[in-house]
């Protein structure tokens, strides 16, 4: 039981810190989609040139092949430095890329991996469907083999940044008669493929990063199937093995920043009775509790990394982190409303970010598995309770 880094690791930390300090963009990421895309790709190019692209990718495929602790150190320093988040780069770097590394063939790897690291392309995901959300395996988008192509018809939903993506990791049903987990394939699809229609979805927090994507006899070469036909469920599960516990580090550090900023806000905000918010015992009690919980989020993340490092694979404890973090973040934004009082009505001005964060927080307990699904997973896979 120790929190110590080796001298080499400490030296590595200095190196990361210095490089980020020197190279991180000085201007904030633009809100606009096209400008955001350009910004993300430029930053990825900078990382690539600096030798920091694909920290968790094997060297053989252009990555850095960092061990878990180097990844941990990199991510901690990265988040602390205030460097830009993954944004549009997220899918390629963390989901599609690693899946192709694990399950793709050599040609797929050569074709698709370098452009991701070099900042040439943006990837997105096509998994969920309107009637297959929590129950992903019941997806219906069908793909019929026609010669050396698949013909895909159906629709996908919740595809983040689809309008600005070049490629898509797509799950389709290639065998309608097989049991529901067994007839699915994982395919690589071009976003400018004829027969596709992309419709942005406006969310309650004012964003439009989510999309619905429609497929009308879209043709995808058979060689774009990754991991073999009808093997898509297992391929998509393999993605998980790339999250060696470090996956939660960025959101952990973001949460810590947020709660500290909220405490600072409470020290400077007056309630309707004229007192400072921090002097209200009820607000102080809640803030302190959130601070303690956020602290344990760090400890849980480190314990998770330690566990994965020993066992070599992530366990069901990840569901506990996801559930804890997303519910915690929601509580934080709710207490924020309490502090800003009637100012919660305004999305602009100095305090506008807090009601805005409150609206955005609803996504946390829905996306990436609802809190209810997380509780099922914890109950069934971690505690062994029956379905």
């Amino acid at each position, binding site marked *: 039981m120790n929190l110590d880094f080796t001298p080499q690791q400490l030296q590595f930390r200095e190196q990361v810190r210095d490089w980020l300090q020197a190279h991180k963009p000085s201007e904030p990421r633009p809100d606009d989609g096209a400008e955001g895309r350009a910004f993300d790709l430029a930053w990825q190019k900078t990382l690539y040139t600096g030798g920091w692209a694909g920290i968790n990718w094997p060297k053989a495929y252009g990555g850095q092949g960092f061990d878990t602790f180097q990844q941990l150190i990199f991510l901690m320093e990265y988040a602390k430095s205030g460097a830009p988040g993954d944004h549009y780069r997220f899918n390629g770097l963390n989901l599609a890329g690693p899946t192709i590394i694990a399950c793709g063939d050599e040609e797929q790897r050569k074709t698709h991996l370098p452009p991701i690291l070099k900042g040439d392309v943006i990837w997105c995901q096509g998994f969920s469907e309107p009637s297959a*959300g929590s129950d992903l395996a019941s997806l219906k988008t069908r793909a019929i083999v026609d010669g050396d192509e698949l013909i895909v018809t159906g629709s996908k939903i*919740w595809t983040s940044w689809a309008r600005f993506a070049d490629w898509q990791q797509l799950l389709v049903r290639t065998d309608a008669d097989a049991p529901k987990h067994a007839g699915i394939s994982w395919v690589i699809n071009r976003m400018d493929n004829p027969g596709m229609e992309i419709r942005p979805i406006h969310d309650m927090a004012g964003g439009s990063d989510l999309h619905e994507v429609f497929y009308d006899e879209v043709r995808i070469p058979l060689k774009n199937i990754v991991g073999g036909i009808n093997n898509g469920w297992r391929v998509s599960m393999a993605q998980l093995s790339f999250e060696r516990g470090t996956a939660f580090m960025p959101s952990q550090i973001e949460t810590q920043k947020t709660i500290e900023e909220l405490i600072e806000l409470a020290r400077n905000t007056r309630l*309707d009775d004229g007192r400072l918010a921090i002097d209200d015992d009820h607000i102080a009690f809640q803030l302190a509790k959130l601070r303690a919980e956020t602290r344990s989020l760090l400890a849980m993340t480190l314990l998770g990394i330690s566990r994965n490092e020993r066992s070599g694979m992530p366990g069901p404890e990840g569901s506990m982190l996801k559930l804890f973090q997303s519910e915690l973040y929601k509580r934080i934004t709710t207490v924020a409303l309490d502090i800003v009082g009637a100012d919660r009505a305004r999305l602009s001005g100095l305090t506008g970010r807090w009601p805005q964060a409150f609206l955005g927080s609803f996504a946390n307990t829905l996306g990436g598995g609802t809190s209810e699904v997380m509780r099922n997973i914890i109950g069934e896979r971690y505690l062994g309770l029956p379905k």
Partner: protein
Amino acid sequence: MDLLPTQEQQQIIDTAASFLANEFPINQLLGAPNSDTRISREHLQKIAQLGWLGIGLPEELQGVGYGLSEEALLFVELGRNLMPPSLLGSVLGGRLAGLCGEHERMRSLLDGDIKVALAISHPGSETKIGKSISGEFLIYEPHEADLLLVADEGGAALLPLKSMQTTEDDRCIDETLGVSSAIAKNVPVLCYLPAENDHLFLRGTILVSAMLLGIAEATLARSVDYAKQREQFGKVIGSFQAIKHYCAEMAVRCESVRSMLYHTSITFQAQSPAGVFDACSLKALAIEAAQYNANTAIQIHGGMGFTREMDIHLFVKRAQVLGTLFGGERYHLRRLLCEPVVD
């Protein structure tokens, strides 16, 4: 003793429900970037013709002659249909003008010729409300509003919106409403009514609570409907205990707040000592119910609930806005604890 609505009261509910569903369907609000103008001047006049704006005013003041109970029942329906809070401005403004003896102004308010925006004190600002007003305020629905209603425990006042120095528009958490800030320094009012004569602030508290109940009930009803038809894992999601128990908790909150609204509308109208106790209790419970139910409804609706393709998010936002009107949760709970025990 009979806490349920009478047949006559039920008719008020039914009429309002069907009028609102026909004339102001909620899906109108979807996609409208700022719908302060949802209720045009013509709409307001049409509503006025139904007698709604003077429903709780005595007949000697040219009102419909019903009491607070009927007014509250109407506002539940207005809340359920996401009708704008300025209607509350018209109702309270008309009452204020009438009780101040300004019959002409009252008439044009009750006829819907004038739009009354509601203002609340800006947090942290010391405000003074009397024959003149001072302080910083937030104003909901400033667009095309003629008058402004401000109220606190001391009394309530009406003044021309133009007499306030308003800043640029802010974006409101509820995109169907406008909001702006305003500063007043000894701005004279048109009429001022001390709370001893008629406690408009607490009356507003009760009517906003009614609107919050509308939110709580609407989000429960939508959740139950959705849970009965949406399928996952081969079953409708309403058969899963997680969802079913959320709905049960929402139902209990509706029952609790509806009972309290009925009870309060009677004790407050009767000026019984329990009136204040009940009004403070009611607002705190109504805020909690509306926010719990609306927030939970998003979770029950899943990803779709997070989008603007469904209307459920509008209830989440409106619940936040209504919570700030006529005293928030902390305000009313603090006051409740100071009240003596009631029977």
